[in-house]
């Protein structure tokens, strides 16, 4: 490879630094976005797994009892019976003075042994103090750094049971040298002695669970020895449901990252191809003076390789930075829904790195390959005219369209068959999207031809439209990228909007009381907190309520694994308000069935996940042991993605003295009663009770729920912005390239008398045409994607059905956004073209 050859080729970097830099920037941004989304995705999973491990440790099984826990004497009995590999746990959330939620894990440090990483590496000195001094607690190692607290400081923790002062122990200060905390591990777990945890969480004399490490042989023996009311449950079953949920959340992210990948690929392809095409006459001339075909090819590919490698390196760095932003968002969502998680560090997976290298370097090379090969092959510069290339591109359109139709058909078939679950649904969706996008260039060409025909006699607009059509290989990919980004935005607003509407509607239906009395507890702990059941009558009297309902959520074992059971004593005629999807007979009969026989209702996601239908039977553990319940109906509910079983109080407590505590009271006031007066009286009464409780109204609950909902989808919006940004750069690059290529034409027009303002207008007009086309094409694609997300993907992943809502306002917004982006992207080229020096441009070779 001769030096002058390399020189001749690379000179362009000095002549047109802006265009060449754009190529590099394209690779950087594409790589960064794809990597960042993957990192965020992966760190969410890691944080989740870690939380599971921290809490569950290496136990193979857990002994669980009723929701309120069970007597700790059971644990003593087990130890006495010779079961050594057991560890008692009391756990629950609490709140720091600064409002952050932590997770308190009460362990018996002496029994922990093999179970938990966080707890087992406590040094001897702290263990001594934990066990002997009540009220001592070990914050996670990472917490100290920015907490501004010191060893031995006292701190107030707030929990469902009240407020308590604790003494903070720093492991390091206690001489705990041996411990090696893995980065981020235990970031949210506050470990304390079981006695302290019982006090803190209001569980005196009770345990939440006993962790057990067992082999299969010992399993049956232990199961037989367990007293009534206790269950031996494999650990996997316990977190299965939560895992599924995290899975669904990841799918959302993965869908977005795949879209980002697609758009990024467009961006790189577009700029790299242009980088070579732009200099095809250099290639042709070099060929004429005798440069070897292979040498030419080599020098072009060398440049593409350099751009790819440098761009990928910078992109990886930028991506890791960007990931930090995304990860913060993800952690927030996970905390709202699953656990208190803290994500501190993210490192790219080898596979993800490979993928972005393939994208950045591989695609750069691939994109340069075709034009380089062509240029090196052809001997005469005249045969390399842009027109010829474009004619070939236009002939390629037909092949592209055929491929598109095949993909569309394949996608339709895959979705139609519905086999293969979520992965197949995603494959189907992406086949459809790719098919649609491949069809776009043909449609764009036709649309431009149509516009040109319309504009007969309007010479200037016709020039604009026709030159777009002639540069189809440039304008089509950029338009496709913009279409894709806008469609993604539309589909997200369809999906999230429909979801939000349905949830709102459901909340309105589900909250049938006028006033609620609930325990004071951090949001994450609310389902476990209880109020005295006997309050019911007093509350009704004070508020002059027509009727009182109660409801309590709890996890309980069943023959389909751990399930969430919602035990209710509803208002009269409650079934009229419940959005029943499937049930037999009139509601009066159903109500009677639920009251008098062992029957339950299940939510839509529950039915989907466990594949149960009306008439099926479930064995569920209730207060006095396991019984078989018939599924009497399915209703719509968005309260929990893994699904809920609804049971009436009298069935749950049948044959027992009844409930001691309930999760919440709902009071229905008489028609025309003043809720504010009732609330005031209730609050006065509650202030004198020992158990902390508060009064809320449906509106408050709705507001809080919707706030959490919106935070969950905040990340989707963020990703939407990022995809739009990438698409913006794609369209900017394309318009820039397009106009540079047409510099000679613009100079000619200027010499004929077109004013600088006219040039600006022409360039902006072209941007508007492309933006308008992308926006229009994005509407059907976006609505279709949204429909598939709702009807296929969401049903598959969550089991949730929802009513399709067409957010025309947001669709309109997105369309304007697309056109706006294109106009904005044409601003710089317009300005440059209008200010261009005419003579050099006129002297350019045609």
């Amino acid at each position, binding site marked *: 490879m001769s030096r002058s050859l390399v020189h001749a080729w690379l000179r362009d970097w000095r002549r047109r630094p802006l265009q060449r830099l754009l190529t590099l920037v394209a690779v950087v941004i594409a790589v960064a976005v794809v990597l960042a989304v993957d990192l965020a995705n992966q760190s969410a999973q890691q944080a989740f797994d870690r939380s599971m491990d921290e809490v569950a440790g290496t136990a193979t099984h857990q002994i669980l009892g009723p929701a309120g826990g069970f007597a700790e004497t059971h644990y003593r009995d087990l130890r006495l019976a010779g079961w050594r590999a057991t560890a008692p746990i009391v756990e629950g959330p609490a709140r720091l003075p600064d409002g952050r939620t932590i997770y308190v894990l009460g362990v018996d440090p002496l029994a922990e042994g093999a179970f938990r990483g966080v707890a087992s590496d406590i040094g001897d000195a702290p263990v001594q103090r934990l066990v002997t001094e009540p009220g001592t607690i070990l914050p996670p190692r990472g917490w100290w750094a920015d907490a501004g607290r010191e060893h031995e400081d006292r701190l107030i923790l707030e929990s469902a049971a009240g407020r308590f002062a604790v003494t903070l122990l720093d492991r390091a200060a206690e001489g705990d040298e041996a411990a090696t905390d893995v980065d981020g591990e235990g970031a949210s777990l506050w470990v304390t002695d079981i006695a302290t945890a019982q006090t803190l969480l209001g569980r005196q004399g009770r345990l939440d669970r006993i962790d057990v490490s067992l082999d299969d042989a010992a399993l049956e023996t232990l199961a037989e020895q367990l007293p009534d009311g206790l269950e031996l449950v494999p650990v996997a079953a316990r977190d299965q449901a939560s895992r599924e949920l995290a899975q669904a959340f990841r799918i959302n992210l993965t869908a977005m990252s795949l879209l980002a990948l697609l758009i990024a690929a467009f961006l790189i392809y577009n700029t790299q191809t242009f980088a070579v095409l732009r200099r095809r006459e250099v290639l042709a001339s070099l060929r004429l003076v005798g440069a070897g075909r292979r040498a030419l090819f080599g020098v072009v590919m060398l440049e593409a390789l350099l751009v790819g490698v440098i761009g990928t390196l910078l992109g990886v760095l930028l991506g890791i930075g960007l990931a930090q932003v995304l990860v913060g968002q993800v952690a927030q969502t996970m905390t709202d829904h699953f656990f208190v998680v803290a994500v501190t560090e993210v490192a790219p997976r080898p596979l993800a790195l490979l993928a972005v290298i393939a994208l950045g370097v591989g695609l750069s090379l691939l994109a340069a390959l075709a034009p380089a090969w062509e240029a090196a092959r052809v001997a005469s510069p005249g045969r390399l005219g842009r*027109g010829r290339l474009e004619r070939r591109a236009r002939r390629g359109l037909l092949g592209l369209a055929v491929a598109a139709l095949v993909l569309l058909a394949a996608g339709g078939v895959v979705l139609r068959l519905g086999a293969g679950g979520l992965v197949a649904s995603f494959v189907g969706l992406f086949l459809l999207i790719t098919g649609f996008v491949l069809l776009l260039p043909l449609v764009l060409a036709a649309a431009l031809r149509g516009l040109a025909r319309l504009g007969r*006699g309007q*010479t*200037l607009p*016709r*020039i604009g439209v*026709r*030159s777009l*059509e*002639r540069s189809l290989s440039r304008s089509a990919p950029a338009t496709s990228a913009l279409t894709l980004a806008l469609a993604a935005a539309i589909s997200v607003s369809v999906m999230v909007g429909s979801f939000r509407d349905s949830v709102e509607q459901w909340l309105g239906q589900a909250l049938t009381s006028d006033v609620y009395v609930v325990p004071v507890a951090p949001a994450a702990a609310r389902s476990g907190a209880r109020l005295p059941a006997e309050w019911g009558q007093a509350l009704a009297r004070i508020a002059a309520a027509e009727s009182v309902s109660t409801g309590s959520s709890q996890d309980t074992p069943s023959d389909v694994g751990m399930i969430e059971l919602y035990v209710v004593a509803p208002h009269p005629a409650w079934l009229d308000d419940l959005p029943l999807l499937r049930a037999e007979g009139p509601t009066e009969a159903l109500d009677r069935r639920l009251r008098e026989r062992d029957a339950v209702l299940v939510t839509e996601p529950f039915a989907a996940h466990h594949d149960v239908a009306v008439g099926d039977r479930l064995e569920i553990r209730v207060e006095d042991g396991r019984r078989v319940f018939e599924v009497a109906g399915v209703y719509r509910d968005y309260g929990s993605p893994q699904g809920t079983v609804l049971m009436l109080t009298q069935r749950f407590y049948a044959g027992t003295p009844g409930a001691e505590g309930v999760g919440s009271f709902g009071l229905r006031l008489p028609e025309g009663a003043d809720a504010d007066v009732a609330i005031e009286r209730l609050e006065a009464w509650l202030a004198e009770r020992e158990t902390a409780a508060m009064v809320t109204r449906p509106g408050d609950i709705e507001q809080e729920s919707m706030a959490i909902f919106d935070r969950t989808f905040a990340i989707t919006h963020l990703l939407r912005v990022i995809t739009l940004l990438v698409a913006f750069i794609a369209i900017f690059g394309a318009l820039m390239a397009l106009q540079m290529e047409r510099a*000679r*034409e613009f100079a*000619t*027009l*200027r*010499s*004929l*008398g*077109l*004013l*600088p*303002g006219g040039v600006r207008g022409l360039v902006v007009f072209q941007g508007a045409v492309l933006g308008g086309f992308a926006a229009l094409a994005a509407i059907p694609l976006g609505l279709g994607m949204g429909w598939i997300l709702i009807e296929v993907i969401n049903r598959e992943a969550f089991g949730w059905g929802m009513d399709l809502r067409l957010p025309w306002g947001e669709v309109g917004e997105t369309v304007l956004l697309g056109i706006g982006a294109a106009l904005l992207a044409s601003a710089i080229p317009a300005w440059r073209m209008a200010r261009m*020096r*005419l*003579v050099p441009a*006129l002297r350019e070779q*045609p």
Partner: protein
Amino acid sequence: MVQRGSGVVLSLAGLGFGYPGEGRVLQGVDLDLAAGERVAIVGESGSGKSTLLHLAAGLEPADAGTVRLAGQALAGLDEAARTRLRRVQVGIVFQSFHLIPTLTALENVMLPLELATDLGAAQRRERARAQLAAVGLGAKEGREPEQLSGGEQQRVAIARALVHRPALILADEPTGNLDSRTGEAVFALLLEQVRATGCALLLVTHSDALAARLDRVLRMQDGQLQDLAARASAR
């Protein structure tokens, strides 16, 4: 023959130009072109002939001296005003045609009418058709430049330069990209059309034979214009 108003169409006085870091290309060029006058410029390659035409058309500002187009000094005008003056007063014929590739022959000819006049669409079409017929291309008005031969393209360019009846035609080697027979025909057509419309012509050529067929021949040398006829008579 159309009679144009008398007076000076183009007046260059003390015109100078140089590229940054290079020597002077033009140095004190003086030239007055009367209405309807046809002048040829000859000279070595690289002597600055094209540069002179660019300055005269106001495509690039001179760095010394003045250019007056139809009595208007260019120096005081901004880009837009210069463009407005140019599109009414000047028609340009380039060596490499410079037709707009995305427009048909007819649309190319209609372009100056759209930019420089306020004629309606129908009138523009009619005038452009007539002009295209005048250069013998009436039958090919719907063709795109790519579908025309080099000579045909240059005839379209001539029609485009003349259609709005400018006072001055600037032509930079209009036959330079054509073989000698075609070049001869195009040149004859250009002269005939210029005569028919009565506009002035400033033409750059390498061919002394072609140059001799105009009213006056000037040689570009050392950045200045010398009147060949005047020198001949002095000898």
